[in-house]
């Protein structure tokens, strides 16, 4: 494996992307799992398809369109929910479907040969460019910086937002910051595992990490480590057996989850 990594640029890029996206997933995933924003994140990911389609139509980088749509979806869902009596769950469903529909329409309107959307839907880690690796590195760096430097506020906000508000903390700012970080993180994941599979990357490593710890910070660190191992493992399978990378990464991570639980039970029984 090392030889292939050194030899081929695309493998090196894939390797870096796997590591960097695991960092993003470990932190953002823990946040969405603990704040019960999993279906919201699914909605954000799917809504971004509309922006990707718009990117193709306008001839700009599709992921820029995707970020635009994702951030608007997150802030839109939050503010409509606050102003009306419509449940967040319902709104998420609406944004989800409308985003996908817009994407399909924009792509149909795009002149010329229709672009291949499967990389966006299911991801392809073996085709990421070194420019994308740099963007991913910047995103991962920002995610780590924000979560470490504001960790106490983050923890307090995730646990009991109302109490932080009473203490005089600007929770609206926290909410916006959180939603924007989640949206940006998710869109860059799309390139690696795709829209349909991104939610798995944001939940499976966290579920595995939670078997070992009940501390927010540790869950973030463990899920980053678990995510790194499973995504590099998955990437390797993808390369070796020529299967789509997004799907193989997810199968490896669910396998690790399924094996971890019984193994941890046996270990903890032995200790007693």
């Amino acid at each position, binding site marked *: 494996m090392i030889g292939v990594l050194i030899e081929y640029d695309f493998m090196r890029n894939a390797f870096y992307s796997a590591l960097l996206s695991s960092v993003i997933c470990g932190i953002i995933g823990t946040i969405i799992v603990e704040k019960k924003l999993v279906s919201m994140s699914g909605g954000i990911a799917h809504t971004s398809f509309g922006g990707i389609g718009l990117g193709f139509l306008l001839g700009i980088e599709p992921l820029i369109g995707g970020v635009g749509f994702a951030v608007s979806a997150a802030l839109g869902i939050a503010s409509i929910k606050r102003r009306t009596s419509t449940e967040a769950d319902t709104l998420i469903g609406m944004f989800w479907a409308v985003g996908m529909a817009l994407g399909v329409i924009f792509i149909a309107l795009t002149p010329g040969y229709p672009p291949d959307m499967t990389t966006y839907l299911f991801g392809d880690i073996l085709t990421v460019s070194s420019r994308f690796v740099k963007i991913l590195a910047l995103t991962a760096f920002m995610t780590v910086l924000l979560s470490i430097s*504001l960790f*106490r506020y983050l923890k307090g906000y995730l646990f*009991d937002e109302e109490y*932080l508000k009473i203490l005089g903390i*600007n929770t609206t700012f926290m909410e916006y910051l959180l939603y924007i970080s989640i949206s940006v993180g998710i869109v860059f994941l799309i390139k690696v595992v795709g829209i349909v599979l991104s939610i798995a990357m944001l939940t499976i490593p966290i579920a595995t990490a939670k078997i070992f710890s009940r501390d927010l910070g540790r869950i973030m660190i463990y899920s980053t480590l678990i995510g790194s191992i499973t995504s590099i493992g998955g990437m390797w399978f993808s390369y070796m057996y020529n299967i789509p990378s997004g799907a193989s990464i997810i199968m490896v991570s669910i396998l690790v989850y399924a094996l971890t639980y019984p193994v941890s039970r046996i270990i903890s029984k032995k200790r007693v």
Partner: protein
Amino acid sequence: MNIIDINNISVEYFGTKALEGVCLSIVDKEFLSIIGPNGGGKTTLIKTILGLVKPSSGIVEIKKGLRIGYVPQHTKFDRNFPISVHDVIITGRIKPKIRMFSRYSEEDKRLTDDIIERLGLETLKNRQIGELSGGQLQKVLIARALVTEPDLLILDEPTANLDAENKNEIYKILHKFNEDKAVILVTHDIEYLNNNKRHVVLLNKKIIYSGDSRRNNHEHYHGERT
């Protein structure tokens, strides 16, 4: 001296009135008890004071710089959240101004340990928040409110699911706190009120009765009696 002035507050939830023209002043160092039927608007009044609910008319004036500690009736948080008892309590020391890389000071830590000791929570402090009984959780929430060193402590039915011993313990803590600070207590514990003559307000959308039962000649009535 008044620390809070509530001027003619009305609150509506999607068309139904929860509070109608409530006027109330809270004097420094007083112990105000609020009673009333379920749905009478007690929690709503408190949330209006805290700024969590916006009144449809009227204003709440709060003395500048007044620090308020709050023990909610219904906790909205997820009890399975990965946070320890100690970390929940120390959250009360978090600074309002969001700064990057801010840390809890030695004083924050010392105050937290003090409160933990005073409320007898030492053995529980490293437990995850979901591993507590209802009464233990209630004490943790009181600790989180006290650690802020508030000038006013607002408690919304803090003794609702406590046994007699814990109830008395909480009342003792409140009385000690009340020696130099103000308390607002929402309660259904009439027995307690009978034994502790204090300023009591009966709330059912409006203030039905407000009186200081320590000084019977100062009783006064608002609006019609029911």
